[in-house]
């Protein structure tokens, strides 16, 4: 399991830059990022090298941020890699709320990040199928 940081952003120029600058100023490295948006606002979801520091510095800079546990899996960066992984989700009845990806440091791997209901239970079910979730953000 990884700790994901979600940040509330207004949907207008400069807000994403402002948030990333806070992280940059504190030497926090973003390993993966996804954005969900509506007309008025967006939610940035981040995997960073030090989520607890990130949550602290964002709060100090008056951002509303929350921490959520997500599941991350390593897959080979080849055709069918994701499909194979998701087959395990189907078998265990784990529903994906949203997901995004991060390319691995060497070009042969990719990392898929999943937000699911009942994170711990789902992780357990997938683990029973022989899948091992990433629990160190520096792997990404």
């Amino acid at each position, binding site marked *: 399991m990884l700790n994901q940081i979600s940040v509330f952003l207004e949907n207008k120029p400069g807000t994403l830059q402002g948030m990333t600058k806070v992280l940059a100023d504190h030497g926090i490295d973003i390993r993966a990022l996804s954005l*969900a948006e509506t007309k008025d606002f967006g*939610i940035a979801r981040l995997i960073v090298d030090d989520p607890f520091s990130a949550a602290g510095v964002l709060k100090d800079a008056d951002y509303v941020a*929350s921490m959520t546990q997500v599941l991350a899996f390593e897959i080979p960066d080849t055709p069918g890699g994701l499909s194979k992984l998701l087959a395990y989700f189907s078998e265990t009845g784990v529903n994906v709320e949203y997901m995004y990806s991060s390319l691995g440091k060497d070009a042969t791997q990719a990392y898929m990040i999943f*937000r699911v209901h009942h994170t711990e239970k789902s992780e357990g079910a997938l683990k029973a199928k022989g899948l091992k979730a990433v629990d160190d953000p520096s792997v990404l």
Partner: protein
Amino acid sequence: MERYFQQDLECMSREKLVKLQNEKLVKQVWHVWSNVPYYKKKMEEAGVTPDDIKSSEDLKKLPFMSKDDLRNTYPDGLLAVPKKDVVRIHSTSGTTGKRVVGYYTQNDIDMWDECCARAITAAGGTEEDVVQVSYGYGLFTGGLGLHGGSHKAGCMTIPMSSGSTDRQIMFIMDLKASILCCTPSYAAYLAERMNEMGYGPDDIPLKAGIFGAEAWSEEMRRDIEKNLGIKAFDIYGLTELSGPGVAYECSAQEGMHINEDHFLAEIVDPDTLEPLPPGSQGELVFTSLDREAFPLLRYRTKDICRLIPEPCSCGRTHLRMEKPKGRSDDMLIIRGVNVFPSQIETVLINHGYAANYQIIVDRVNNTDTFEVKVEMTPEIFTDNIGEVEAKQKELTDGLKSMLGIKAKVTLVAPKTIARSEGKAVRVIDNRKI
């Protein structure tokens, strides 16, 4: 069967009541003239002396008092008795500027407690009842006011104060509280929590609630009544005049009876300050009739409402006031509907937002646009966009049901709506009419 705490006073004939008011008024004016140099000077400037005031007909000769006068005389410039006679003070929350400090002698406290006891009795309270006072205790008048009233009415009083919701619920259930006193928004929250915990209206021992100190709608009343299985009574008051209990609702639930043997009410035009004929809507002005430590003559409440001249079915002869719609200085008319920022504030608080917001009104193609900007809070925020949007919609619906018109709700980043030290800029009206 309607019950009264002081039937002889609450149901006395109008004729006798007016006579009593006039006697008290003459005394009160002399008391102020002799002991409050600030107001004496105002009277002198207006060319009035206590000899000019013989009855309530002469009230209009007296100068007004406003919150500014109270601030100018902070902390004790309006105190009308020696400090040794004062037994307590209370103070306003100070959200709109300097705090206002009100002083009380023992007689003032007794009068106030009796006013609250009338409210509790009108809500059905007897010696058999258990009253849970969940207003904040302290400088705020809500807690100690209803507390004193509950003692006078002979009820078993639970001095809960606010907060610790689970403990509040435990005492309601275990001690079989029958009357709850708190703000309407807290009552709604308690109802929601109790329903979540599986307590339905039939399990909850409460039979009545006395709710005040903030604006609330008729819809909110019906919701609270349904969810707690109670009858909900409105109560009105101001720290400047004593606290809650200046006016209270009876079983008819059609306006609040003003305790007219202690407080004289007028309705004036908020712009011209001219008294308006009976039944008109305007600014509510109060004159205390028997306060010792902190008497106030013609105090402008800034509350806009109507006095109901018709007699009430409950048997009380004291005039009723309608629930104030809000403050005279901040009413907006949007698409023909009166909107008070206080109503919006109530909805925000009920939905878990901070009471920091901005209203933006404009006119596009001859139609008013109405936007409410609200700051995102950690309590509302989740990583799930659908959930956040659902909360945004709940707020939109809540505003619609309170105001009767639809507002566009925009969620903005924290601390982006300016907070000011004085009165916050709540309304931006860009309409060019």
